[in-house]
């Protein structure tokens, strides 16, 4: 009995304390937002400055064993050789935001001239990236953006809106605008996938898609085995499912592998973003009719040139500035420091053999 009453008293005391803390005005979301101030950069660009020699550039992908990002980074490293920069790729083996943070800290210690990052979480990497920028290290986000004030440029593979809407348009064509569809995405927090999915959902609201229904967004965590199992689960759970959009290279390859060896082959349409080398087999055996992707080599190439242009003082990341990106030609910095690579390429039986990546 004595024990029980003591526990009760302690609980009551804690509750009272909690209430008291709540009653007195603490720091809330609104206070924090009003505290945040716009940072204005006062650096000026010199568009005629030559690209500096011997720049140190580091690529920090979401995870190092992601085949797509390997292609991007290798192309970026090759591009860096064109202007005599010393480029490398470092990164974690898991796609966790926290793992990227320690890499940024070490890149700052190594005194790199520019960091290119594909962010696992737009905010988690912010603190150390700001520290880097304070020490005059240029920061370029690629593939997956960080919060806007944590980098100077974002190299966007294609406008997010175009990617999202075009994937719905293409699968709708294949399905005659009828039937249930599902999405097999990467991780629940993947910045780019979530943006695309929002646009897909918006596109689906249009009247021409009234006979189509998005029944589920599944998450394969960019893990081959999990994506494979999620595909299996989707097809079992929704027997009426007609199509799957997988806007991630890991997801679409795993989904294609499952479908190709199941009864659903030829019955369920799979579309999304994939790499030609991973998907060639499934295009050839008829599992997949088409998929799309921008050329990741161009993304890495553009990223490297953009980083060099920043580090050489040609641009500062303001809207309207222009820079030369080697064989890709001239690019203009858009709103919020975005540089858009161009429209995605559609791969099908006719053109897939022209690509090797």
């Amino acid at each position, binding site marked *: 009995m004595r024990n029980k009453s003591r526990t009760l008293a302690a609980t009551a005391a804690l509750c009272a304390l*909690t209430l008291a*803390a709540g009653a007195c005005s603490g*720091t809330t979301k609104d206070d924090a937002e009003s505290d945040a101030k716009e940072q204005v950069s006062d650096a000026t660009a010199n568009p005629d400055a030559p690209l500096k020699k011997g720049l140190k550039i580091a690529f920090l992908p979401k995870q*190092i064993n992601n085949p797509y990002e390997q292609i991007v980074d290798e192309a970026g490293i090759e591009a860096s050789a064109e202007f005599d920069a010393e480029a490398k790729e470092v*990164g974690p083996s898991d796609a966790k935001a926290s793992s990227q943070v320690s890499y940024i800290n*070490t890149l700052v*210690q190594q005194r790199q001239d520019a960091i290119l990052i594909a962010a696992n*979480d737009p905010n988690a990497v912010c*603190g150390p990236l700001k520290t880097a920028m304070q020490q005059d290290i240029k920061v370029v986000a690629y593939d997956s953006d960080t919060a806007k004030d944590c980098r100077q440029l974002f190299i966007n593979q294609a406008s997010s809106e175009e990617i999202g809407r075009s994937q719905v348009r293409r699968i709708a064509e294949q399905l005659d605008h009828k039937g249930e569809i599902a999405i097999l995405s990467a991780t629940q927090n993947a910045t780019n996938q979530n943006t695309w999915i929002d646009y897909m959902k918006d596109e689906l609201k249009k009247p021409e898609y009234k006979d189509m229904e998005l029944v589920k967004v599944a998450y394969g965590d960019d893990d081959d085995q999990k994506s494979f199992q999620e595909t299996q689960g989707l097809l079992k759970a929704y027997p009426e499912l007609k199509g799957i959009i997988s806007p991630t290279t890991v997801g679409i390859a795993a989904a294609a592998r499952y479908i190709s060896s199941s009864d659903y082959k030829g019955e369920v349409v799979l579309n999304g973003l994939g790499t030609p080398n991973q998907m060639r087999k499934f295009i050839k055996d008829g599992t997949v009719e088409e998929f799309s992707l921008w050329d990741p080599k161009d993304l890495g190439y553009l990223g490297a040139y953009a980083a060099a242009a920043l580090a050489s003082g040609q641009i500062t990341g303001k809207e309207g500035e222009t820079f030369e990106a080697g064989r890709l030609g001239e690019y203009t910095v858009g709103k919020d420091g975005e540089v858009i690579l161009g429209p995605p390429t559609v791969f099908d039986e006719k053109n897939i053999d022209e690509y090797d990546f």
Partner: protein
Amino acid sequence: MPADQPYRLRRPVKSLGTYLRWDTAVGILLIAVFLAGTSSTDGFASTGNMSAALNDTAEIALIALPMTLLVVAGQVDLSVASMLGLSSALAGSLWDAGYAFELIVPVCLLAGAAGGLLNGWLVTRVGLPPLAVTIGTLTLYRGLASVVLGDKAVAGFPDTYSQWASSTETVPGTFVPYPIALFAVLAVLAAVLLHMTGFGRSLYAIGAQEDAAWFAGIRVKRIKLALFVVSGLMASFAGIVYTLRYGSARADNGLGLELVVIASVLLGGVDFNGGKGTLGGAVAGVLLIGLLNNLLTLNDVANEIRVIVTGLLLIASVLAPRAVSALAERRNRRLAAAP
């Protein structure tokens, strides 16, 4: 059986183990890594890098303290990283709903204590093995975290608190970030508790021979329950530190961190079977893994190699003390057989 005695007892025959205990060896290894890093790698010993490297281990270090006490008492809590995630998710959703941060912290801590209480209750009152219980709650708490916050990532926490947790803000005049300073204070408290009090000795007793401890009048169940509550409490506090440090509250924060914590504690020479180990060793283990990772990253060593190095060290930490005591035993037997 020398293997079953706490480290404090003297072994019958002097062997290498008498002069060099594993936890001391880890401490020496830590100093060696630091010195090697300082001389070989630019920027390793800089205050900026030390602050960042230390702060990167903040949550692991904090959770390792109650974990050491648990493992010494023959228990283990695998749910800590999930509790960290749950606390982070709770903080995120409350912050998003407009509650004051000063209110959110006690709520999260309360949730942590409650989670620890559930672990402890299942272990002591229902009588389930801690490994099984906490594997269950590992999944349960991570699931709850996803229920609380879904797939959102909440950001924009107040600057004053984020600064406190960041590696750029340090205790004035030093390179020590605040979470690490707090850890240092707690580590001293935990060391005093474990090595200088009757309570500490009772933990060794429970870990070595639970029945004997019970017959000796130690309130075994109550102590174990308290340890689990403290573990949950610390994990939820680590969740707040993590959320502030990365500025992002997510349900999957700290995924898999429990294994790093346990690896660090074992590396520091704390015996997984209970009854042996020192807090200093565990702290050295945490710092060794942290510094080694930082040093290898600075030298652009591939992540796979870093994981292999940590794994080998861990195996060595389990193997070395056993090898030493096996040697000593063999010698004892030989001496006993001699006329």
